[in-house]
């Protein structure tokens, strides 16, 4: 079951690469949040209330509901156009992301390690690189934020792959990280929408050495 969920996760990456509308990205991010909850739930050995609440909060409440709603609000408020405006055609994006997945599979197979769950490793690394690719290949600032959120999802899967119970302190730290960064990114994105005419990265090239 875990494997099925993780494969759906990979397919969602491929789906994002050919999506034309920004709202599709938001929906995929919400779907990824739900998948992450499923995976974490299945990984739990013993159900402790406190732990379960924390995971629920991180995945369902935050990743699957709060962030997509907030992103949708940002898109509406700043009148961001609905097209994603990639620098490269979607077909090439699809090929690149497929290549990323294939390379991570080959990489993971070359590692001999009993402590590591391979499929988790593959999913997390390919999500990480896909996120970086999205940041590099999309024109809109909001898609950069979504790329960042995708990287965060990849890191979440990686922390599951590592398997050992992270101390609560670190868990809280992750919460802080996600909350704070999204909040800050959101606030400044809002400001950028107010100040700059179009929220494109081309607008952010005024800081110069002279």
């Amino acid at each position, binding site marked *: 079951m875990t494997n099925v969920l993780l494969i759906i996760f990979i397919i969602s990456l491929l789906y994002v690469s050919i999506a034309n509308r920004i709202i599709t990205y938001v929906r995929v991010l919400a779907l990824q949040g739900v998948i992450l909850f499923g995976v974490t739930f299945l990984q739990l050995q013993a159900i402790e209330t406190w732990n379960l609440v924390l995971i629920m909060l991180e995945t369902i409440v935050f990743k699957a509901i709060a962030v997509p709603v907030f992103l949708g609000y940002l898109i509406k408020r700043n009148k961001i156009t609905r097209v994603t405006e990639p620098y490269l055609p979607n077909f090439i994006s699809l090929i690149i992301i497929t290549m990323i997945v294939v390379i991570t599979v080959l990489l993971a197979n070359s*590692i001999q*390690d009993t*402590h*590591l769950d391979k499929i988790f490793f593959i999913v997390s690394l390919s999500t*990480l690189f896909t996120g970086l690719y999205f940041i590099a290949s999309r024109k809109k*600032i909001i898609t*950069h934020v979504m790329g*960042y959120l995708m*990287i*965060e999802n990849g*890191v979440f899967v*990686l*922390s599951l*792959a*590592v*398997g*050992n*119970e*992270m*101390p609560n*302190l*670190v868990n809280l*730290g*992750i919460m*802080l*990280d996600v909350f*704070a*960064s999204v909040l*800050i*990114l959101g606030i*400044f994105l809002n*400001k*950028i929408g107010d*100040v*700059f005419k179009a929220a494109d990265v081309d607008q*952010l090239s*005024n*800081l*110069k*050495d*002279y």
Partner: protein
Amino acid sequence: MTAIYLICAFLIAAFIFFNRNAVINNVLIILFGLIQVGFTFYACNNYKNVVLQYFTFDSLGLLLLITLTIVSIPALFHSYLYLIRHDETPQSRAIYFSAIVLLITSISAAYLANHIAVIWIFTEMTTLSASMLIYHHRNKLALEGTWKYVFICAISITFVFIGILFLSLALQHAGSSDLSFANLMAYKDQLNPFWLRLAFLFIFTGFTAKLGLVPMYTAGIDAKDKAPAPAGALLASVLMNLGFVGIFRIYTVVSQTPIFHWANLIIFIAAFLSIFVATVYMTKVLNIKRMLAYSGIEHMGIVMLGIAAGGIGYYAAILHIILHTFIKSSLFFQFNQLYRTFQSKSIQYVGNYFKYNPAGSIVLLLGFISATAMPPSGLFVSEFLIFRSLFEGKHIVLLIAVLLLLTIVIWAFGKNILKILFLPVPGIDESKIPKINPWESLTQYLLLFTAIWLGLNPPPVFVQLIQDAVKLLPN
């Protein structure tokens, strides 16, 4: 006491944030300064003790904490001067001071943390508080700088977290899960080299955003440019030291393992590229603040060269980073007076400064001599020792290349500073130039003389502390 310090500091930051009264605001800031000094004394008296399980007053943490406290007092003072001159609203003043209190507190805590996850959390907090400082002017350029800083730091901090995950994988092979540095040292022989390699790579890359090395240095430059100069002084000195602490602590563990030489190679590449990039930009740059920021990149490159070369280089690197903190912060403090005189950041519209503000000009001149490591600067001693360690490590080609690049840096830096000091610019309305009180330069003189004194005649305690900080590294 540590818990009291953290709680008090966070409470003060919160009070300042919600308070709109100028007098109460000033009282709270003075109170914070006193608490910071008190905590530093407490740390000195509890040398080597572990408090609250996650903090240790070890040599490196203590040295940098004292440095931070020495720099933060003038930073608060110059911030006060800066804000009363800029017709700030009570709201913007509240946000500024609350952010600076938060920044100083989280840097102090991160210096002393003995657990990599704790360093990570406090590094995250420095990003948040620094972004508030960078966005202080609330204009288009400040927004751009803040956006870039927050975005790149968010990605770097994620990289550090990935590194921590790999580190815990490496440690699982040893059958342990406690990620404190003491525990990592205890299991140093059983760490899995493959995962440790990945962990070091990610943690190093992540912390370069704070330290200011290739590849993540870019955001820091914009940040130091757009933040108000007193805050920029903190970003350009003590915040860079935070990146150094993160890398140094993990490097200490790595140095005991088989991947030591590989790690050194990574550091050599990053450090050399940083010096190269800084040199290229220094020759072209016209914005004075950015020039100072690029000079910081160059110095961090030299520090990391010292670390990678080993031997006497370890000692010199820590000496270098402490002296650099004093010198760079004093130059940033001085920048505000320069800006008030000419109302411009560009070297093109600034000149003949000696005529208008002799006391400030001498700070710039002394700062230039110190920052380019000419005698009697303290940096001369540390840089000389780093070059000696490179020579002894048989990195002759690298040494020659670095020396050539540094010569270009001195030329570019000197050209710009001498232009600011002596060459008159046409079309300046002298009646508009304000008179500047020479006493405002006092703190800069004190910082610069401290740097010279520590370099030429270091007190035995200071030498002992540095030697103790590097004693875990192989000789």
